[in-house]
């Protein structure tokens, strides 16, 4: 298919408005990484299983590896790059650092964004609820215990 099928889309990424022309088959992950230089979301399984490519669209998690970029038009997209407020880290980021919730870090952007969407929905989840919600985000390093502790700690910090 040729240029005539290009779409003009606008949306907001991490608070910044974006206007761009894309082809319908472009995946959101490739738009973020290759066109917008936001490399936080990672491609790993490429089949919606691992969650390394997780970003938030209007606050809800999607697998950007299997999500067409045009679907983001008119939405508010959050990637890991948008979580810190200048130099000030998000409580989830601080909690992951303080509790050693990461080792290689490959899964971490997706973990933190999925956890953010959970805490926005349910600020005081039980351990079972955290496990259930985070089931689709895989980590090859930590064994998950430290990740659960990080999320619990972040939930407490966010209560203030």
């Amino acid at each position, binding site marked *: *298919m040729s240029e005539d*099928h290009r*779409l003009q889309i606008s949306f907001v990424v991490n608070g910044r408005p974006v206007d761009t022309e894309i*082809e*319908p*088959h472009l*995946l959101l992950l490739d738009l973020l990484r290759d066109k917008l230089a936001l490399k936080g979301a990672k491609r790993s399984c*490429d*089949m*919606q*299983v691992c*969650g390394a490519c*997780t970003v938030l669209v209007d606050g*809800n*998690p*999607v*697998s950007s590896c*299997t*999500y*067409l970029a*045009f679907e983001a038009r008119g939405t508010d997209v959050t990637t890991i790059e948008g979580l810190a407020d200048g130099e000030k880290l998000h409580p989830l980021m601080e909690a992951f650092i303080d509790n050693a919730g990461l080792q290689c870090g490959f899964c971490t952007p997706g973990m933190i964004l*999925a956890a953010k*969407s959970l805490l926005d929905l349910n600020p005081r989840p039980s351990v079972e609820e955290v496990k*259930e*919600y985070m*089931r*689709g*985000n895989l980590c090859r390093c930590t064994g998950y215990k430290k990740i659960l502790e990080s999320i619990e700690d972040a939930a407490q910090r966010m209560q203030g």
Partner: protein
Amino acid sequence: MLKPFQLHEPTTVEEAISVLGKFGDDASVYAGGTELLLAMKEGLLSYDHLVNIKAIPGLDVVDYDESTGVLTVGATATHRALEYSPLVGEKFSLISDVEHRVANVRVRNVGTLGGNLCFAEPHSDPGVFLLLYDAEVELVGSGGARKQSVEDFILGPYETTREPDELLTTIEVPRLPEGSRHAYIKFGYHERPSLGLGLVARVDNGTLADIRIAVGSVGPKPVRVRNAEERLRGASLADLFGNTQSSALLDEAGRMMAEAAEPVTDLHGSAEYKEHLLRVFLEEALEEATRG
């Protein structure tokens, strides 16, 4: 890698049908894309035209008619919408209970009920609860509109009665009889379920006054097991659990379930293993649905 395609965004069902009719085999309906895009990335399916039916306003509406007791789910309603709908949670708690356990949060956020049914991947959950509710689908195509039970709609792996130019528009779900309780057992170690066993029971005066049983994922398609329902209906709870007689009754019902579900040997396990699981989980589900 996804191959380029042309995107169509009809705003009415009629328009969608006419685009599908015009491009025939070169076109596909695209809803959440959680199945379709994976298959296209792998090169298993290839289309020059995708028809985004999410552009049709109102096709995702979930609505309940108090007077008929029927829940109407628009085809593009997502798993997540059903999982969190207060209406569904209150009046159709079997649906929210199962939807909460479908796939992962990201797939639930994007994947639709209509897409799940039309793809007819055997390792799926919704078919089972829809059979328990005696749900119907409505399809609209160039030949007009028709209704069909979900049971008759799904023919086998990746196969339904849907014509290429037909759109699944709504799923109609009647309420369960007053006083019913449910259990849904989802089992497996893979990404998709290896077994889904759903059961609806109504206990009256210590006997199983009514029961519905459906099984999915183990075989080619989800099935209701009416002869096992018949066999168990009227049994007293005392007869069902914990003695040799009850164990013979459950063995018999378990065999009927295996016969109806036609377990297949695949990556999820052997047919024999799945038959064994059916018997084990039947008892578990019965206990869950009949004991307070």
